[in-house]
């Protein structure tokens, strides 16, 4: 009996829950809802909570300007808690329950992969602001971060042309972004005539903290006479001990420079950069870039967070660009309907924070400049090299056998995320 009573409680609970859940589904007509899907707890909170604040800041600014099409923007923030299935669930919640018109969110590839089927099913709109491995182009997703050809390849070019590097260590955390990037780089380097035994590839688990052996391997690999550099796709937390070990084993940037793709101002703010001066990073944006729009953005950011030590970084710029593009697209389409906006998005231009214009291409990737910066002792980067003009984001890498024939073009007549130029057919799920 005690039992049956508690079961009744349970039943009540279930029904109550469904009631609550559905009650949210009533949409407010006079505002445009903007979903924010970034982890605020768990391991990824470190990076993602910043982007949440960025979106909120942008929304605030936009509302100051009177919102979009006369409607105020209303942020809806949820916490997927660095739990991948939860990302999918929360996306569904945002779209069906909250009825948001656009979602800004995700950081890790796996979270995006988990969200992808949901946004496609519910025909939502997702802006993904982080550099990633490419090999994807969805009708419902706009990728405002860098594709490998907007980060990895120019960086390697710089190493070869400017620093005369002949030997490469490709060190990465063992997940899809480094794996793919390194595959691409390996192919690219070989195409450039780098011998196979001048390339060393090494993978480590997430949060790897004991780098002694690997760094000493790199050291001996680098002491073979030819100029050596490390191309690092090491992720987040593992970087601090990595750089510390480099510093302690006396690997200076002059001997073996490390060029990183996942180390930005935010990550450096957790490191004593004294010993790291001269190591490199390749991004599409650095806080130290000097121009008015950036200065203004930084001021806004400091004002918004009430902390003038808070740094800005590349994913924030990507968010900034994505948001402004979305606003423009909505006003161009005069509607928040996904398909209309998605069509309007293509070709939209908004200023980026490095003094140029960002362009949204037909493959849902941006054209951006590529900058290479050297770490300075104040935790900032000093730009030492820059592509002249913009680099067009490439959804499908030309250096991977699987995808060299694939292109993505969401404009008529192709309208396909993975169009095979050989078979002239749109193979696979992303097709309409």
């Amino acid at each position: 009996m005690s039992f049956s009573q508690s079961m009744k409680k349970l039943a009540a609970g279930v029904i109550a829950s469904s009631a609550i859940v559905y009650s949210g589904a009533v949409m407010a007509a006079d505002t445009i809802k903007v979903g924010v899907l970034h982890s605020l707890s768990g391991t990824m909170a470190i990076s993602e909570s910043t982007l949440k604040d960025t979106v909120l800041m942008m929304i605030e600014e936009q509302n100051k300007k009177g919102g979009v099409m006369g409607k105020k923007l209303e942020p809806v923030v949820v916490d997927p808690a660095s739990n991948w299935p939860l990302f999918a669930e929360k996306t569904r919640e945002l779209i069906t329950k909250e009825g948001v018109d656009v979602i800004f969110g995700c950081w890790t590839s796996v979270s995006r992969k988990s969200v992808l089927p949901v946004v496609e099913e519910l025909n939502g709109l997702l802006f993904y602001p982080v550099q990633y491995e490419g090999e994807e182009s969805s009708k419902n997703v706009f990728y405002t971060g860098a594709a490998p050809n907007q980060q990895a390849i120019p960086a390697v070019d710089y190493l070869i042309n400017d620093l005369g590097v002949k030997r490469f260590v490709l060190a990465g955390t063992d997940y899809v972004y480094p794996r793919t990037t390194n595959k691409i780089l390996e192919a690219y380097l070989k195409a450039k005539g780098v011998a196979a035994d001048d390339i060393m590839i090494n993978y480590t688990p997430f949060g790897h903290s004991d780098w002694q052996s690997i760094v000493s391997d790199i050291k001996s690999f680098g002491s073979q006479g030819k100029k050596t550099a490390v191309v690092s796709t090491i992720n987040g937390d593992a970087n601090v001990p990595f750089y510390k070990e480099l510093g302690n084993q006396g690997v200076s940037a002059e001997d073996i420079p490390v060029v990183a793709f996942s180390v930005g101002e935010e990550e450096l703010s957790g490191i004593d950069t004294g010993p790291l001066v001269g190591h490199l990073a390749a991004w599409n944006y650095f806080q130290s870039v000097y121009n008015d729009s950036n200065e203004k953005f930084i001021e806004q950011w400091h004002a918004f967070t009430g902390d003038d030590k808070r740094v800005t970084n590349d994913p924030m710029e990507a968010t900034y660009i994505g948001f402004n593009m979305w606003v423009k697209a909505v006003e161009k389409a005069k509607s928040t309907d996904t398909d209309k906006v998605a069509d309007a998005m293509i070709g939209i231009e908004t200023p980026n924070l490095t003094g140029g214009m960002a362009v949204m291409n037909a493959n849902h990737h941006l054209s951006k400049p590529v900058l290479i910066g050297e770490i300075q002792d104040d935790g900032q980067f000093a730009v030492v090299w820059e592509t002249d003009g913009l680099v067009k984001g490439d959804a499908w890498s030309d250096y991977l056998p699987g995808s060299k024939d694939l292109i993505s073009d969401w404009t008529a007549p192709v309208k396909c995320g993975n169009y095979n130029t050989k078979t002239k057919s749109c193979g696979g799920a992303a097709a309409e």
Partner: protein
Amino acid sequence: MGYRFSQTLVAMLVMLLTCVSWAEQALQDTTVPPQTEQGLNSGTDMMDADESNRVVAPPTINEILDQLTSRSFDDKEAAIRQLANQNNPRVIPLLNALMNRELVHNRKDDTIALGEKQDGQWELRDPTTEEVVGHVDSRAARPVVINNRLRTVINNQLALSGLNDPDSDVRYQAAGQLIGNDDPEMLTALGERREQESSQRVLDQIETALNIAALQSDDLTARLNAIDALSGNLHPEVKNSLNSRLSVTDNASETRALEQALKKIDARISTFQTADTVFFGLSLGSVLLLAAIGLAITFGVMGVINMAHGELIMLGAYTTYVVQQLLPNSHEWSLLIAIPAAFLVSALTGILIERFVIRFLYGRPLETLLATFGVSLILQQAVRVIFSPLNRTVITPEWMSGALEINPVFSLTYNRLYIIFFALAVFLALLTLLKRTRLGLQVRAVSQNRTTARALGIRSERVNALTFGLGSGIAGVAGVALAQLTNVGPNLGQSYIIDSFMVVVFGGVGNLWGTLTAAFGLGIANKLLEPMAGAVLAKIIVLIFIILFIQRKPRGLFPQRGRAAEE
């Protein structure tokens, strides 16, 4: 003589080059290929340029410096070389200033000055006279950006001057910097230095450098002597230059000599590399030991599964951070304060946990596991709320950074070295505490048999609190050490908790020596496996080994009798 001439020549060429480059500022974009060709053709038209520009007066330091306002690194390099060639007392300080980003580009009048950040403003000084020339706000001026190439140039220049420094360490560094450098200017400098050098180690460096250069000489005997002198020399440059020589030489005797020399070098290298691996193992072991030893107390002696142990370590690390914040300009010794501070913070937290949670759960270890896990979540989130989820910077003091270089291939990094000693010190301290002191006696008594101990009038309540406090405190101390190696962030604890449990269980619960053996054993095993299996696989293998080992000996390496063992 001709040397001086060529010097002035270079100076003038460079001036011309910069004029050209200014004229072409518009065309000057920062992409590399155009730049290099820019460098080249300006190089060619320099040749005829110098004919016409003989008469130009030598530029002042400031004029040279102002070329650094250019965005092109080639210009900057030229300027630096030119600057270095002035024999002027200001050169070295200015080069250093450039290295330390104290030379700033004043955007107002497009000049270079010595700058110092003072409350959001730049205080600008004249490069030569060092007198204050004015203040501008932080945006109006930017430090001159240099890249690795320029750093190398500057370092070489500094090294050149360092060769004659009174301090032998500086000379040693300088000579080391110049090894493998075939710039004739450098070599002559080295040659001059060799004559008057007194310190042996500096002399060795210089010899190495010169011998490497000698490998390229046309005189066979000179080469053979050089090879002979270099054989067994571990400096990486040596091996490379020998190898490259081997690839070009056609002389049989030289080839033989080279091969012998290389064989000797390789043999030495391999021995030192094994030594290296062992050191890595020890160092990993010491980390495990630090992380686990506190647990050995709370788990081993008290039979409490403290899942919050990792977070106590984390607290210790954050304490280190806070202490450094409180003593901003004494990073060298703030660690010494952090250690007791961390101990207290964690110990107090531990005592609180014991008083408010664990006290009710004695004799129910599995319940303590759950409760303390809850505590760990709370502590983590608390830290997130207080310090933000971002990692915190803990500065490594000078005396802990760098490495003790035994030879070019074998060097022990100081922080690891200290941490090994530190871990052992903590271990011994704990051991004596338990064996020698009254508290230790009581602790052991309680751990053996609670009721009897109580009967003997030991206030086991108090003892429990203190023991737990002790274990936690040590966790805190471990945190101080780990802060030197890894991230100080909310997840610091989680990454160590499982390993620590493995160590304790593997070593045998309640047996400190077991913990010691296990920690170093696992550490070294891990490092020996890593090269062949890779980091992840090595860890997995070790884990599986432990699981199987526990099947064979459920009580670990050194089983212990007593209450904890009966759970």
